[in-house]
């Protein structure tokens, strides 16, 4: 495992399992996942559908709690929090970016970006100010009063990213953020994530697209509810001072050959 590229890990999963009861049979979506993610890391979680990738994302995003195991998020043990407490954690420590953007269709871009602060109890003046600043960062300030339906897909995703960042979360969790975008727009969005990474945001990309995953510095591959591999991406490896030998066996594009 790569050492966390910073101080303490922002995420630490220890023996996390998740079991769903579906009628008579129990579905083991996660079977003992151990994972540490350092502050400022840019990490991709990949895996085929049904691998437990989504379940892992839900647990990382505090939308769901593990059946067993521990999860520390930015120093807070969250594995056994109440749904009310989880809502607070999501609000303060996590920024979500979804494949389908998931903006509120009837609200202006500004209000969409304000939303996390509305639930966080940020005062009106500061809220508006920060929402404008976040929109400015993604280059959409002049369209603050528009509705999401008046924007292109790429623009909508930029608004979603502004919304995810506005509460200055410990991690940004992006679920197939380019899945609904054409190649060029997807690249622009990924470039924005690169930018955010350089600014020190911790970014977790969940994707099945190896090209997208390659933008991250570290790739975690999930198969059958377990981490099958965890290592630097080819790009990161190439950029690393140490030789490529450190790279885990099937990380990077090579992994998809078989």
């Amino acid at each position, binding site marked *: 495992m790569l050492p966390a590229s910073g101080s303490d890990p922002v995420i630490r999963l220890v023996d996390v399992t998740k079991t769903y009861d579906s009628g008579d049979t129990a579905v083991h979506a996660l079977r003992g996942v151990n994972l540490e993610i350092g502050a400022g890391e840019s990490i991709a979680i990949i895996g085929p559908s049904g691998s437990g990738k989504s379940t892992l994302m839900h647990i990382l995003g505090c*939308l769901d709690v593990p059946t067993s195991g521990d999860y520390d998020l930015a120093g807070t043990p969250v594995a056994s929090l109440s749904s*009310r407490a989880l809502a*607070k954690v*999501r*609000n*303060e420590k996590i920024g*979500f970016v979804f494949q389908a953007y*998931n903006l509120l269709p009837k609200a202006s871009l500004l209000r969409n970006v304000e939303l996390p602060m509305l*639930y966080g109890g940020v005062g009106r003046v500061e809220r508006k100010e920060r929402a404008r600043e976040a929109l400015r960062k993604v280059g959409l300030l002049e369209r603050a009063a528009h509705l999401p339906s008046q924007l292109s897909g790429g623009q909508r995703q930029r608004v979603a990213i502004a919304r995810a960042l506005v509460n200055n979360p410990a991690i940004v969790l992006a679920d197939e953020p380019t899945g609904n975008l054409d190649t060029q727009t997807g690249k622009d969005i990924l470039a924005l994530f690169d930018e955010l990474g350089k600014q020190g945001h911790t970014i977790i990309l969940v994707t099945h697209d190896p090209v997208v995953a390659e933008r991250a510095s570290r790739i975690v591959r999930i198969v059958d509810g377990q981490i099958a591999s965890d290592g630097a991406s080819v790009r990161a490896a190439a950029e690393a001072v140490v030789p490529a030998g450190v790279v885990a066996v099937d990380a990077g594009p090579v992994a998809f050959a078989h």
Partner: protein
Amino acid sequence: MTLRESIVDALVEVRVNRARTVLQTLGVILGVASLVAVQGMSDAGRRQGLKFFSEFGGLKKILVHNKPLKERVQTAAMLDSHGLDWGDVEALRREIPMATQVDPIAEDEQTIRTPTYQKLREITGATPDYQTVYKFFPARDRFLIDDDLAQMSRVVVLGDSAARLYFGNEDPLGKTLYIGDAGFRVVGVLRRKEFYFNEGDRNALEWMNRLTIIPITALYSRFTGDPDKKVSFINVMVDKVENNKKAVAAINKVLARRHKGVPDFEVIDRKERMKQQQQEGQIFDLIFLATGILSLLVGGIVIMNIMMASLRERIREVGVRKAIGARGLDVALQFLVESVLVTAIGGLVGLPIGILFANGITALIGQPAVITPQMAMVSVIASVVVGLFFGLYPAIKAARLNPVEALRYE
């Protein structure tokens, strides 16, 4: 999220879905309108009744009148009964402490003659108290005075219509009116009394304008020649309305003793009578009330239905809000605020419709228009309660959505 911001969101929701909002509010509009109408109409009726009663004594009046005995086989005491008399009046004056006035009235029929008129008519023997009890004041000159009573004076005061009847266009003051064989000097003409329950109705107080009033003592000495000085009825004015019941009991006790237990009289509490009349009126109110409540129920169910449908459309939105940090309470508040907003709009629209409704009906039956603060209160309370009650289930449903499943929902 604060209430204020929830209202902002709800306003957007209501504005974007105008057609849906209209459908949602219809039932509440109808319900609130009919509740407001009931309120207005019953209020109009109550005021009208009070006003009418106040024209001849108000609620503080207790009426004692003769009641014919119905028993076919009568005891000696019953056979001896001759109804209310002057002795009763004096006993009541002595023994009813809360009585401010005890005003006896005796009636008789006599032929009335002037140079231009001759007819058998009812004449009223009264005391000076009569004018304050009935608020029946002279338009010209005076009413009966104590001296008239003491002297058994042959003086008469006339209601407005009676004066016209007897003397035509001539000035009746100072003229002589023959009652039976005795000449009575006209000393006063009374102010016209008018009361119309409904526009176009006959004057409910016209009987007063037709009165021919002489001192009760003169009636006894000139016409009835009655040693017992029988009275037709007695008005007992009570110091305050709260004492009515006590006064009724006391009067009954005094009279039962004096009449040796023979129930040849009846004591009627004006306040009780008014209450009874209102209760009869309340049957109508109840029908309107039931209509209103039914409309509100149906309206509420419609709102709940549409909220549930709207929730199905917005499951993803709820998921997103929860992912972003909305607690269940925030989501519930959002939906509740939305349903209360919708019903409040219904209440706001229903209020003027209800007022129109009430005034339309009161106008139709000729009563004066009414707008009371209670109407606004009824509309606010009814609409908010419906919004809260029927919004609760969708709100709880929304609050309990699992964020993972809600986000996945297509």
